[in-house]
């Protein structure tokens, strides 16, 4: 433990030398992460896919090590188990993907099978009840105590921008792994939950933006021209799934799903919808980030500081 701490300090020092201009105060602060006006919002960026993968893999390895310490096995979950598992929160905008998957019903089934085959699930289900209970406590903590309103000393808590309160065990293996990766766990838990929330909130704002509604009208006209008279992408999806309800799993229903999804994606491209969404997403994300800049910059800095540590952990395995 002390050896790994020393290592992470060296790593931090190195990181600070490289990115010192951006985050001077991060180098003097030890583990606690107080207000950090030195990190400008403009320096905050999304992790690349490679960076996100490194952080994910490292956390999974640390979780496995923690479970081993409790006498349990844990199989690190792969970062990207279904490569075509893609998120289209607004509209399917990739005709080639739509040609392969329609609206993604087949991927939904792949996810279900993946969850069934999850080696951790098989292992846990095979343990005798007492051991199984202990294994769940090790990985997820004791869970909530019915009737208890205040945070316990063994819990971490995040208050979300709208005031919501979410908690987790501070001693679960998930928490232990994140403590080793990110340092100050209470701060990490808070900023991780807040930034997750902000991502969703930005999406909700985009879909309520009048410019989005206008762009969707143009898209809808294109759809109508192609024989798919739907007002919005969710409406198109709902109509297709209705058809499949009356004729489940038939080739005809599947063909209709793919035809509709391909038209959706083609019309999205033709009406420049992805570009409009891109602009709106950047705008609303920026506005929300300004408002919650301390949490946003802190989350970014903690991720960045964890990267060298994560790379070291994944390189060892």
């Amino acid at each position: 433990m002390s050896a790994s701490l020393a290592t992470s300090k060296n790593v931090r020092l190195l990181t600070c030398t490289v990115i010192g201009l951006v985050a001077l105060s991060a180098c003097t602060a030890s583990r606690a992460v107080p207000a950090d006006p030195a990190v400008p919002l403009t320096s905050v960026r999304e992790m690349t896919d490679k960076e996100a993968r490194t952080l994910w893999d490292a956390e999974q390895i640390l979780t496995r090590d923690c479970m081993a310490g409790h006498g349990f096995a844990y199989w690190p979950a792969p970062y990207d188990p279904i490569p075509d598992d893609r998120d289209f929160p607004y509209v399917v905008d990739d005709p080639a993907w739509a040609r392969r998957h329609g609206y993604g019903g087949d991927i939904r089934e792949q996810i279900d099978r993946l969850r069934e085959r999850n080696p951790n699930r098989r292992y846990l289900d095979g343990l005798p009840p007492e051991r199984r209970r202990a294994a769940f406590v090790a990985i997820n903590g004791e869970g909530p105590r019915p009737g208890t309103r205040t945070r316990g000393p063994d819990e971490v808590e995040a208050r979300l921008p709208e005031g919501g309160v979410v908690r987790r065990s501070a001693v679960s293996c998930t928490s232990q792994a994140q403590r080793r990766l990110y340092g100050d766990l209470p701060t990490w838990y808070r900023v991780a939950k807040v930034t997750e929330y902000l991502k969703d909130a930005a999406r909700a704002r985009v879909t309520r933006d009048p410019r989005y509604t206008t762009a969707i009208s143009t898209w809808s006209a294109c759809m109508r021209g192609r024989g798919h008279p739907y007002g919005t992408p969710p409406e198109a999806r709902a109509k297709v799934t209705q058809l499949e309800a009356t004729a489940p799993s038939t080739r005809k229903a599947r063909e209709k799903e793919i035809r509709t999804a391909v038209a959706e994606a083609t019309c999205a491209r033709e009406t420049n919808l992805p570009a409009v969404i891109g602009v709106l997403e950047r705008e609303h994300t920026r506005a929300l980030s300004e408002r919650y800049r301390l949490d946003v910059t802190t989350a970014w800095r903690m991720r960045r500081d964890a990267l060298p540590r994560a790379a070291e952990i994944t390189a060892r395995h």
Partner: protein
Amino acid sequence: MKKIRALMIGAAVAAAVLTAAPAGAAVPSPQPSSSASPAPGVNGAPQRPAPPNKTGYASAQAVDGYLYVWKDAMWDYDEQWCRWSGSHAYWTYAWSGQYGTSAGECSENDNFDNVATSMWNNGYPGSHDDVRFYKDSGYEGTSMCLGNGDYWGNLALGWERFDDQTQANDEISSHTWVRNC
């Protein structure tokens, strides 16, 4: 991050979307999954089988891998509650296996649509272990996400909201497991 929350196909989901129409009078009510076969009551509606032993379920927490939702705040097992190991697209029939990858195990075979006030994700860890809750059935509408091991105590404090700032308390209608919140 990759999720396909916008994408849902399949007979079960489709049925949910169908039945979610406002004129839902013609909704085919699924048979409760309990072994007790419900006999028609005097008015033709099926009688509910006796609620399962709550103590039995509560102690079954020990063997886990479930998402738990409660009607009341602070995880109150004395009131209505449900749990699922898989997804469920139509909480009106929470106990039915017809609308997702798992039947709900519930304190009673009663409507759980627009009821949930507290919840806990104690699902199997690993792939797709986070839960996304949706305002509408069929995994549609605004949503909120609960990480593996996380819990909310009270959606009714006037605090917790869906991501579009509408109230989440007594509004959730479906849920699915996602790779990452």
